[in-house]
């Protein structure tokens, strides 16, 4: 597992992910990025906005960009993965 951060770039602004999360690998983080992009786009469309050129930048703990994910990819490419839903800590405390 490694800690990776999913920052968002949207029409000139940068929305930093201050906390990051643990992922198995970069592919795992890209899966999360894909479904996050779908969630954000659907919420925005529901609120009357149009899809834009938003993207995610995935960085490691040193701040190095290890991957990017364009929101457009979620509209034009087939699903990368089955929607990941489980929370890693869900059954850890009982």
């Amino acid at each position, binding site marked *: 597992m490694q800690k990776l951060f*999913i920052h*968002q770039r949207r029409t000139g602004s940068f*929305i*930093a*992910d*201050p*906390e990051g*999360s643990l992922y198995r690998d970069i592919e795992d983080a890209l899966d*999360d*990025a894909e*479904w*996050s992009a779908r*969630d*954000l786009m659907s*919420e925005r469309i*529901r*609120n009357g906005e149009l899809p834009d050129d938003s993207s*995610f930048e995935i960085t490691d703990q040193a701040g190095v960009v290890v991957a990017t994910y364009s929101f457009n990819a979620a509209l034009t490419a087939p699903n990368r993965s089955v929607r990941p*839903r*489980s*929370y890693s*800590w*869900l*059954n*850890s*405390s*009982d």
Partner: protein
Amino acid sequence: LPQQNSVQNILLRSMPEGDFARLEPHLELVDLKLRQVIATERHVIQDVYFPESGICSVLPVASGREIIEAGLFGRDGMTDFVHTPGVDRIPLRVMVQADGQAWRISAEHFADAGDASPGFLRLMLKYSQAMVVQASHTALSHGNFTVPERLARWLLMCQDRIGDDLPMVHDFLAMMLAVRRAGVTDQIHVLEGHGAIKARRGMITVIDRSTLIDLAEGSYGQPEAEYERLIGPFGRPQPTESQ
């Protein structure tokens, strides 16, 4: 032993003196730690918790991996919200989402108090009604309100219970609001832009409550009013330093 007029838990403060006296010898002050599960869908309820501080979430879980927040409570509540004689479990999980302390009592001693006093049972049933109203409005919020409106409501509910500084990690918040973590980060950014909150790593501070109420677009308030009608005022949480 706790004195009734010095406890923070509103239910303990609100019960008739005689009922509190019955519970008092069995109350033990314990810590509540983030992500600690204090009731689970899989086991008989062994202990009942009355939080003095902190926040607990009521969570339905399906298929071992789907989860959402159906309700929350702090010093306004307790972990047993059914109080039905002979019922010893409920298929819901209760998890700590902000550190605090609670008075803990065994389920057996708690049940004895209910058997001994209709007044005690009446208070417990009023609390049940307040929780049903809160859970109903949470369902309405999840279904019919946008993410920023839900987030605003949720922050107001947390502020009611622990004050302006809310120690919240985005990962956990995402589960509470049934969105992915990036969605939480995105909307916290939006609420900051409105000047309603200030966020830093692991902490959200409410700056402007009235703006948050506006942003909640009517999704906040009815359950709180019902609680105050049935049980009593929330008041403002005491700063941790003075407890």
